[in-house]
């Protein structure tokens, strides 16, 4: 694996953060959000800030931009020097001049960062009109088109006049980058800029940032939680935990010889792209069989009939008891549609779905209800998948009570389930907001398992979690599968996760299954071009994070 290894000893220092502390105002007894951060970035350098959620990465980047939410966070000590001016002493109007001209920022979600009712070209031009008043409108337009070409947007004239919703996610992020770089700032802050993008688009955006950085000599502060991305783009890495930088080092040294316990833990939690050893296939006892399923989302209304959107077609898959099947693919590939059809949260247009021997694709909603206990789902977002007004015990007993179990039996079973998912029994009386994201996901799993299902569908069930929590939840699913012999349908966009949990893998692209086979074969010797491009785009794929070395190719 080729790491960046440029030497920055002679490069001038662009950003120098000294002993920066940020705390909640008027609450001295609460630990500070940032506690004495020191960080320097030199011209042309990419400094990565990594850490789990709540470690203070985003607060650091917002503090540099002077965008800390007023009244809820204040800087209590320290300096942020940009070319020898302390940004913290600037007045709001001076700070405004510094932004865009000398520091620019890219956000995670390009759809919400762009104004939906303004043409994207005009949005880039607005930066120029605000900061370079002397330019004529013709020169301005020329510069906008030039920067749009630099970020490799096709047909710049057409895209200049487009609205954000007419562009793809990757194109929108390119617009954001163009907007950030049009004034050639010295420092670019990128806060999780590729997290919301598909893996292939992510690769393109990362190489674009690297290319522009080289051309303009920009210093980049890159905030991310993804170690793979770090391995691809970082020069130096700063690891954050609880508002402190616990370790910083050039990328290769950090990945090869991490010094701190926390860094080691963080790296070890990164799931490996190498599939785990295949488990021996059990009896050919398929509990879920999907045959030739198709889902078309109808368009048009009451009287008008339009051609619908084809979300999934010709889907065939089957899972045996105690096995895990993964569906991988990028957004829009139809993997979630398949899951929702199997759960009958949406009705498939045609095809067969057989769960535990019963054909359920054509059953009416009412006729289906008695069969619902055979298949359950765990959703992606642990903050929305539990009713916030209900105690945990009420959520856990809802299903069993629906199936005629007495409340008392359901309650005692709920207690057992809490222990099964590694939570204390007395947490049953609490409300969801009193738990962390990982704990809530455990509760959601307990709620699904309470029905003693044959099939458990996990729809991106670990995607919203930090890597260390992710590893624990995957382990929990494995454990439950072993104890109860459930078949798991695991839907994910993350090949690393798929490699660690799946026995078989289905790769979907634009609603079609392009490859289907044992995980070991599909992920190590992909036959289809699309699978290959997915694997090649996975950042840091040549590095074995958990063992601090290159992946040994057998």
């Amino acid at each position, binding site marked *: 694996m080729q790491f960046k290894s440029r030497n920055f000893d002679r490069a001038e220092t662009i950003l120098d953060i000294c002993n920066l502390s940020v705390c909640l105002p008027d609450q001295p007894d609460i630990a500070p959000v940032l506690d004495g951060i020191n960080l320097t970035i030199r011209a042309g350098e990419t400094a990565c800030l990594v850490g789990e959620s709540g470690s203070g990465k985003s607060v650091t980047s917002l503090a540099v931009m002077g965008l800390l939410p007023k009244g809820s966070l204040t800087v209590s000590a320290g300096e942020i020097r940009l070319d020898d001016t302390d940004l913290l002493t600037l007045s709001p109007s001076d700070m405004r001049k510094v932004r865009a001209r000398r520091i620019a920022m890219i956000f995670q979600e390009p759809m919400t960062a762009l104004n939906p009712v303004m043409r994207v070209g005009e949005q880039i031009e607005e930066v120029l009109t605000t900061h370079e008043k002397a330019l004529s409108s013709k020169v301005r337009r020329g510069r906008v088109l030039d920067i749009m070409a630099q970020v490799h947007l096709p047909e710049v004239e057409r895209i200049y006049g487009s609205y954000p919703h007419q562009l793809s996610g990757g194109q929108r992020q390119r617009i954001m980058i163009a907007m950030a770089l049009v004034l050639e700032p010295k420092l670019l802050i990128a806060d999780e800029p590729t997290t919301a993008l598909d893996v292939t688009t992510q690769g393109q955006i990362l190489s674009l940032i690297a290319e522009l950085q080289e051309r303009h000599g920009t210093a980049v502060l890159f905030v991310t939680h993804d170690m793979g991305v770090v391995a691809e783009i970082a020069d130096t890495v700063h690891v954050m935990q609880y508002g402190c930088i616990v370790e910083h080092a050039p990328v290769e040294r950090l990945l090869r010889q991490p010094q701190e316990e926390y860094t080691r833990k963080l790296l070890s939690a990164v799931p490996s792209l190498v599939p785990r050893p295949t488990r021996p296939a059990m009896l050919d006892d398929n509990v879920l069989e999907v045959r030739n399923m198709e889902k078309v989302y109808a368009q048009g209304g009451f009287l008008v009939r339009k051609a619908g959107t084809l979300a999934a077609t010709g889907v065939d898959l089957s899972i045996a008891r105690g096995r895990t099947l993964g569906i991988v693919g990028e957004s829009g590939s139809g993997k979630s549609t398949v899951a929702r059809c199997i759960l009958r949260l949406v009705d498939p247009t045609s095809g067969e779905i057989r769960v535990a021997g019963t054909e359920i694709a054509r059953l009416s909603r009412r006729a289906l*209800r008695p069969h619902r*206990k055979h298949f*359950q789902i765990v*959703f992606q977002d642990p903050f*929305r998948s539990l*009713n916030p007004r209900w105690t945990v015990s009420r959520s856990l007993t*809802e*299903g069993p009570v*629906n199936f005629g179990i007495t409340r008392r039996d359901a309650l005692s079973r709920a207690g057992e389930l809490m222990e099964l998912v590694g939570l204390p029994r007395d947490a049953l009386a609490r409300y969801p*907001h009193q738990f962390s994201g990982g704990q809530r996901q455990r509760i959601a799993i307990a709620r699904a398992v309470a029905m003693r299902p044959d099939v458990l569908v996990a729809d991106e069930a670990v995607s919203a979690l930090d890597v260390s929590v992710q590893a624990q939840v995957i382990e929990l699913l494995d454990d439950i599968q072993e104890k109860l012999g459930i078949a798991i349908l695991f839907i994910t966009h993350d090949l690393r996760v798929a490699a660690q949990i799946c026995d078989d893998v289905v790769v979907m692209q634009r609603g079609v299954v392009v490859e289907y086979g044992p995980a070991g074969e599909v992920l190590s010797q992909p036959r289809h071009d699309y699978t290959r491009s997915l694997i090649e785009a996975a950042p840091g794929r040549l590095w074995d994070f958990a063992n601090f070395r290159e992946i040994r190719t057998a």
Partner: protein
Amino acid sequence: MADVQQPTSGMQVVLGALSLPKKWRLGIGPIIAVIVLLAIVMAAVFAPLYVPYDPSQMSSTNRLQPSSAEHLFGTDPYGRDLFSRVVTGGQVSLLIGIGSAIVSVLVGLAIGLVSGFFRIADAIIMRVMDSLMAIPAILLAIALVALSGPSITSVIIAITIPEVPRVVRLVRSVVLGAREEPYVEAAIALGSSMPRILWQHLMPNTLSPLIVQGTYICASAILTEAILSFLGAGVSTEIPTWGNIMAEGRTYFQVNPGLIFWPGLMLSLCILSINLLGDTARDILDPRLKKREA
């Protein structure tokens, strides 16, 4: 990720409101509103116990008296005691206000839940609601009173019918948003029945906006009742209400301005304080407004 705020339950609001006066967080306005409203309600409810005269007892010798120790607000053209009439008149006005609010909220909630959850029902229900919204309350009331005679019930019905669509829209929009939540889909997957999901998962989401909407309906119903009575399309003229006291008094306004002034003052104070309470409830219940403050 920061803790997502727990939605406020009704009980928390009550407890919050009780503890808030200590810190004077809400300001003086809502507290005055509560006191004024309580005073008006108590005065109206207990009117029969303390009014000096029977509000409908006429006296040909005492017509159009100015205020005096004997007749606090003076008397009307038929010699009836205006003070007794104004405080008693509050009974009907408040009854109609609260009655209309409760009926429209309950009916609107039921229709709105169904409309928000079942797509097929939605198309039909919303068209019916659109047409109901096109009917002006006053015209409908005049028609109903002409058909069934003046009564409190017909006034409540007349006020409720045009208000229901507004409540339905409100409930429907909340349900439309909430039914896409994963916890609702999880409940479907757990085999919960539709009525159970509607009532236990979706209905609680609508409570906070409904409390706010209810207070506004209450205030506007009291006003509509006054207008109807003023036009002679409301409750029978034998029962005093703020509206028909003003209607009868308007010809003698120049002789005794109190005939318009006192019922008008009660009406304004009452509506002002209900609206103020509604605004306060919205501020407490809507977390977005709270954040803006901070």
